[in-house]
């Protein structure tokens, strides 16, 4: 990576779930304070902040999230900037933080992600999330996000023979992991039958193929690697931070069985880090729907096109198998507070590399990856991390 090397020196998050008793600012402040505490900072060292939130304006009526966070985190007058890229907002914020330090402009930076989603009913939230797609040419026509991913799933089934059982295996594995994550929204295992027979949302995707509506926040503290050692024994170095764009509408893409932007961001990240898919020990990928995890693990080169479904069914993506995917429980079981997801992924990888993965700790995890997608794939961000000590 060009410029100064960057490391995560502290991480923190709220539990993910339905937090009726807490608002937008309460969530983000809790996550931020936990990260500051984890990095053993007083707070005065921080010189800039970035926050990812997709739709705070529509969901809770609050725009100007950067200013709110600077104020309530007690960070005034340092600059805090909001970034938005739908469900990839969190990773976009992380990338801004990385660039701010790599460029030499800032030293200690706090990066947060937050979404407060349960103040509205499901129909209203779904409509707002629809804004991640093409409002005039997808949503207007009656498409929904489960509908868009369902069409990706059907095409994947058509081209590669992927089955509903393979999709269900992703959900069962992620719930198994979620059951071992104290921050997860659903800390409960499910059976193949539960997944296979769940109520249909957009065929072939049922309720157990879809990530839920979630409140939550997550934060990380970044520092130049040469200063990281003075705060923590286990800095987690970010060795690649890459982003790519694709068409806003699904129907404008050449293929529905792969997300081109994610493939490009992944390939660039491997190149920047000088690594290959085989080097990755643990990855958090964007499983907003089960099919998205199948496609992600193909786009990232863990499996060949068409082989991710059988691999999931064979248990190759469990925490103790070939490649550990979504040890946090992923978006499916840990929950998907949209703007917070990318930062939660970074927190999980930091814990894994630090050996604090608890019930799903990957043995000897040294290199991790996060893959965060906005909408149906118009924005994709891939980060690669390694032990920095």
């Amino acid at each position, binding site marked *: 990576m060009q410029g100064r090397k960057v490391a995560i020196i502290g991480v923190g998050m709220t539990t993910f779930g339905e937090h009726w008793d807490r608002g937008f600012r309460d969530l983000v402040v809790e996550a931020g304070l936990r990260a500051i505490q984890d990095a053993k900072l007083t707070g005065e060292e921080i010189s800039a902040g970035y926050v990812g939130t997709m739709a705070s304006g529509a969901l809770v009526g609050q725009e100007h999230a950067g200013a709110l966070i600077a104020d309530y985190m007690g960070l005034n007058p340092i600059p805090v900037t909001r970034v938005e890229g739908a469900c990839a907002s969190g990773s976009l914020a992380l990338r801004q933080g990385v660039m701010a330090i790599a460029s030499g402009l800032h030293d200690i930076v706090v990066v947060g992600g937050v979404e407060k989603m349960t103040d509205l009913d499901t129909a209203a939230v779904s409509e707002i999330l629809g804004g991640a797609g093409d409002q005039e040419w997808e949503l207007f026509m009656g498409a929904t996000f489960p509908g868009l991913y369902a*069409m990706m799933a059907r095409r994947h089934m058509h081209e590669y023979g992927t089955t509903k059982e393979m999709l269900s295996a992703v959900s069962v594995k992620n719930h198994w992991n979620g059951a071992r994550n104290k921050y997860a929204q659903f800390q409960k295992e499910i059976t193949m039958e539960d997944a296979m027979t769940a109520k249909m949302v957009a065929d072939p995707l049922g309720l157990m193929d879809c990530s839920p509506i979630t409140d939550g926040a997550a934060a990380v503290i970044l520092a130049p690697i040469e200063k990281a050692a003075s705060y923590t024994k286990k800095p987690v170095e970010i060795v690649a931070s890459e982003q790519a764009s694709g068409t806003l509408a699904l129907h404008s893409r050449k293929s529905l069985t792969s997300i081109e932007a994610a493939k490009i961001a992944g390939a660039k990240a491997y190149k920047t880090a000088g690594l290959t898919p085989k080097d990755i020990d643990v990855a958090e990928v964007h499983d907003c729907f089960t099919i998205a995890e199948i496609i992600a693990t193909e786009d990232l080169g863990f499996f060949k096109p068409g082989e991710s479904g059988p691999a999931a069914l064979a248990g190759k993506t469990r925490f103790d198998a070939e490649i550990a995917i979504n040890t946090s429980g992923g978006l499916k079981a840990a929950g998907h507070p949209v703007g917070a997801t990318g930062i939660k992924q970074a927190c999980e990888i930091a814990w894994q590399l630090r050996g604090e993965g608890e019930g799903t700790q990957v043995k000897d995890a040294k290199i991790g990856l996060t893959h965060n997608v906005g909408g149906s794939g118009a924005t994709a961000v891939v980060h690669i991390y390694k032990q920095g000590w």
Partner: protein
Amino acid sequence: MKESIALMWRRLPERYKLIGSACENCKTHYFPPRSICPKCRRKGKISRFEYSGEGKVYSFTEISAGPIGFEHQTPYVIAIIELAEGAKCLGQIVDARLADVKIGDPVEGTFRKIQSDDPEGPIHYGFKFRLKK
């Protein structure tokens, strides 16, 4: 989402007559219209292009949890259609349930009511598709 009358009016040519665009330089067709050809950029020569509405089902699903404005139609089938002239677009397949549709099925365009998001607001019309028998 509630669309304003102005937005509805701006989109009438595309939604009523399937007007997209084509690049004369690289012969690529686009729907909805674009003013820049992503392949040719400044070398591109974009013009208005009217699609016939004929095409094939590229992928499809049945929406069982319909969004606001579509409550009365749910469940309904949506599809990505490979238009005969080259671009793809998304639309509903009318008069069909999930079991009636297969990838590759030929379709033709039809003009229908799309949604009514507000009982006192405008009714939105536009193209949908129908399986060709």
